[in-house]
């Protein structure tokens, strides 16, 4: 919702109208009176320019004193009363009554106070309603921003999984080539060479020479292919272990229970992200003497537990990093929880079988 007119602009306009209206009863042809009017306007403009409304009541008190000299000067307090009401300082009401009383309580002279009080209240209400709408818009914007950030994080995680999956598949193929095909080819080449050394006449046999050359070339090519396909960067458990080794604050006790063979790259990516975030938080916020990491894999779930006795991460329990981790783990159907006691414990549970929509498969059974 866009305000028709900004509350501040409306306040300026109403104040300008009031000051001009006040000139009529004040008789400004008298230079001293005009001078006081001008001082009041100057003070008000300085207040509005620098947005300092806190001591506006001082203007009203000054006018109380001036009104003893000429009761009409009490009228000059009306804009200050308007500003007080518009800023939510409702103490202006007794001031207005007091000044009107000092003015003689004439009904004909009531209009400046009435104008100041009513327009002040209306401006206050208008400002409140506008600021509520603005707050609402701000909250919505913040939500959109958080959603966009979460989406980007999840997309990033997805790309990472894709890449590590491809790498792991390449590594597996390289292993198969090396262990099976490579083994057989090398065996064949050794056998051919043995045969060649025992059977002299075969040297001149062109067919034999061609077979041997081809097998030799195949072995060389296979070696090169396996070498090129071998993944240099750590994957899966290797990444996990390298993170633990690289942690410089204290040495980490790492325990692994169960078989990790059934874990997919999605699991590893999530586990590595959680461990990385957790260790970063410990490094930032805790001073531990002992950090324990345990990875437990059973039939249905995989559980990662990170303990530290330095009670870190307190500040970050609602922080951005853990927030995205939670979202990520939840998207896999898992959960991330924190326990605070003698030790600070972070527990991440992920189902072993991740369905497309990220729900526990065993829950559906």
């Amino acid at each position, binding site marked *: 919702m866009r305000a028709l007119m900004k509350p501040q602009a409306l306040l300026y306009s109403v104040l300008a109208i009031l000051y*001009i209206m006040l*000139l009529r009863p004040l008789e*400004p*042809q008298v*230079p*001293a009176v*005009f*001078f006081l009017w*001008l*001082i009041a*306007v*100057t003070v008000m*403009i*300085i207040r509005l*320019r620098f947005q300092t409304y806190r001591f506006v009541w001082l203007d009203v008190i000054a006018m109380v004193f001036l009104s003893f000299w000429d009761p009409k000067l009490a009228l000059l307090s009306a804009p200050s009363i308007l500003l007080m009401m518009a800023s939510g300082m409702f103490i202006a009401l007794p001031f207005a009554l007091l000044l009107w009383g000092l003015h003689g309580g004439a009904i004909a002279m009531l209009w400046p106070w009435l104008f100041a009080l009513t327009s002040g209240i209306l401006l206050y209400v208008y400002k409140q309603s506008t600021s509520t709408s603005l707050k609402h818009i701000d909250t919505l914007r913040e939500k959109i921003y958080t959603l966009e950030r979460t989406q980007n994080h999840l997309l990033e995680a997805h790309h990472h999984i894709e890449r590590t999956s491809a790498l792991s598949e390449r590594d597996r193929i390289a292993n198969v080539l090396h262990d099976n095909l490579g083994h057989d080819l090398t065996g064949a080449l050794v056998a051919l060479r043995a045969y060649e050394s025992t059977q002299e006449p075969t040297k001149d046999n062109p067919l034999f020479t061609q077979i041997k050359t081809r097998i030799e070339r195949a072995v060389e090519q296979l070696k090169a292919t396996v070498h090129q396909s071998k993944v240099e960067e750590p994957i899966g458990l290797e990444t996990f272990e390298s993170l633990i080794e690289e942690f410089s604050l204290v040495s980490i006790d790492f325990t692994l229970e169960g078989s990790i063979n059934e874990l997919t790259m999605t699991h590893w990516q999530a586990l590595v992200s959680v461990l990385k975030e957790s260790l970063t938080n410990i490094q930032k916020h805790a001073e531990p003497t002992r950090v324990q990491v345990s990875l437990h894999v059973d039939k249905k779930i995989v559980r990662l537990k990170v303990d530290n006795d330095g009670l870190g991460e307190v500040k970050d329990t609602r922080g951005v990093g853990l927030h995205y981790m939670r979202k990520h783990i939840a998207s896999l159907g898992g959960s991330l929880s924190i326990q605070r006691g003698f030790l600070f414990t972070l527990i991440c549970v992920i189902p072993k079988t991740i369905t497309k929509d990220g729900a526990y498969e065993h829950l559906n059974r």
Partner: protein
Amino acid sequence: MITLFELVMKRALRQRLIMAMVIVFPILLVLIPQPTNVETPTLSYGFFGLVMMFVTFLLAKQVIEDREMRTIVRIASAPIHHRDYLVAHFGAYTLIMIIQVTLFWVLSFIVWDAPWSFFISGYALMLVFAITATGFALFWHSLFKRYTTSVSVFSVVANLMAVLGGMSLPLVLLPDHLRRVAVVLPTYWYAYGLEQATEKTFGMVILSLCILIGFATIFITVGSKRRLA
């Protein structure tokens, strides 16, 4: 290293037309024949007020041009405080105006025969009005986006202010109801101050000076708001 103040001065001095106005107008105004029934040159002093308003308006053109040409955005991104920018402009224009006022005052002192008290009060009024006019010019330019709009509206408003404020007409000729309206104009208090200087009521002259200072404060406070576009 060239300071901002020097730069503003250089830019102002480069505008030949304005500099000609600064020098020529005081000479022309001194040559205006004064009415024989008045012993003080109030009429020329009043006209000089109008000249000051136009000269300061043309001088302050730099500020609106800076906004139009987007120079102000580049200045804002430089390590220069907006306050320094304003002070430099205001200071340079005021200095030029002081020179013009002094020139006019010296010439009027030579040409006309008036009491000492009038010359002293008149000089004080002109100096203070020069500051008010500079403040008004800066304030006026802060209201508009384009110089062409600003100048077209100003020429109407300034003439109205001069007539209503008693600069081009003696205040005694103003009807009473117009006088009630005219009090909100700074030009009125300049003319009023000159009138009181003629009548030798110096308390009122001081009050006029205070009122003009008040107007200057208002104009500078409102006009000092930073506008980038």
